[in-house]
């Protein structure tokens, strides 16, 4: 009997995961463990390196989180500045767009030159890639209030600051959070790339772990570290979603659902 998908909405995704694991295990059996370790080998490697992986995940998580916070602050300041000055928007927005087209892998070595080896490179790299989604979402969000709402504020003689704080910012929160959700995943990618290039082994971050495992021919450990990075992205997504629910869930439908 085919189970009712509408009653078990998570079942299809769980079955897909199971099928993928099975295919992975079957292919791994016929392949050299140096090329493709099986799921059990990855689990064993993760367990024996659990201490190092946990520390690395924490370091990378902190770097990605710090980068995201930095990007959110700068992105919001930029969005408000663009909103207040059309001239500034016209002068700077094209270059903000350019920032998004920069390949972070190519920029990261420069960050090392400027910031030296260590965590700051990962933080800067995370901030650099997550800045643009926050800026655009913030910018778009500040224009989300309806014409009638803006007219209402103008009719009651609201100051620019009142319009911004009491109307534009709250009306823009749903859009801003959509941007933050995208930015959260990007921040982890940015942090790991920063660690690839800018880590000298202190602290032992996820980016470093992936590289180290590849160099010492321990692909199972590489897989385990990649799994940790994916879990971290998911974790940041969940944190943003919880913040969203808390701040706008009461009044915004998308903020309240799942």
């Amino acid at each position, binding site marked *: 009997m085919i189970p009712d998908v509408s009653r078990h909405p998570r079942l299809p995704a769980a079955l897909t995961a199971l099928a993928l694991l099975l295919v992975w295990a079957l292919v791994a059996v016929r392949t050299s463990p140096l090329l493709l370790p099986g799921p059990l080998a990855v689990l064993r490697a993760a367990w024996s390196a659990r201490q190092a992986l946990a520390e690395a995940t924490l370091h990378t998580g902190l770097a990605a989180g710090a980068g995201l916070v930095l990007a959110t602050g700068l992105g919001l300041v930029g969005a408000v500045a663009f909103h207040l000055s059309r001239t500034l928007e016209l002068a700077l927005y094209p270059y903000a767009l350019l920032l998004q087209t920069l390949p972070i892998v190519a920029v990261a070595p420069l960050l090392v030159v400027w910031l030296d080896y260590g965590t700051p490179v990962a933080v800067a790299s995370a901030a650099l890639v997550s800045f643009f989604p926050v800026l655009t979402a913030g910018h778009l969000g500040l224009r989300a209030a309806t014409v*009638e*709402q803006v007219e209402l504020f103008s009719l009651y003689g609201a100051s620019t600051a009142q319009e911004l704080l*009491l109307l534009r910012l709250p009306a823009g929160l749903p859009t801003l959070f959509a941007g933050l959700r995208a930015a959260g995943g990007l921040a982890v990618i940015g942090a790991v790339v920063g660690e690839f290039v800018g880590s000298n082994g202190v602290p032992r971050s996820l980016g470093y772990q992936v590289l180290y495992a590849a160099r010492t021919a321990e692909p199972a450990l590489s897989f385990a570290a990649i799994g940790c990075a994916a879990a971290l992205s998911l974790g940041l997504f969940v944190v943003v979603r919880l913040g969203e629910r808390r701040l*706008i869930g009461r*009044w915004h439908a998308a903020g309240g659902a799942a």
Partner: protein
Amino acid sequence: MDALPVAFEEVGFAWPAAPAPLLRGFGLRCPAGTLTALVGPSGCGKSTLLRLAAGLLLPQEGRVAPGASARGGLAMVFQQPNLLAWRTVADNVGLPLELRGVPVAARRDAVAEALGRVELEDVAQALPAALSGGMRMRVALARAWVQAPRLLVMDEPFAALDALTRGRMYDRFQALWEQGRPTGLLVTHDVDEAVLLADRVVVLGGRPLGVVAEVAVDLPRPRSASLRHEPALGALVRQVEAHL
């Protein structure tokens, strides 16, 4: 506070990039404390007149009173209740006072009184999403009344309501109106509504926009919604419709 008269004098207005001006040498006077209904074809410029009167738009020629000079004594009711979804009912009603810097205590009293007038004290702490369409419109009316307006401009305020709710809103609106009697400008597509609520119905049309006809409504107040079936009102409605 006294109601504010409205006057359009030789007003010229054109939207940017429009082929012809919307208004040229337009004139209209609404005495203080009267309610004037503006009716006319869709897109003829009725809403623009409201926004000029409220100072949300500035005329390119001529003079509009009161315009922006009446800030603080002006209220507007839109076709949609236009409430802020993240604010409670009470905070929505208190918004005009908050923007003017009225202290919290005074604001709380005024909000309670305004909500009492529309019988919504019970939902003061609810969010707009929890209310029905009719209740939201009552919140919008309470917000308009919270600062005792001297001029009230209304852009099809009852158009989005169902017929039953609309009938009740007419009674509520008139009860509010009788207290304070601000000058009122009401844009509507519903001729019955215009005749029922207004002291005078102005039929607008043409381009540039002009006054096609004025029909004085001298029916006694208060006018209950059931008056719509009275012959006297029907005759006035037909008189207005003849010019549309």
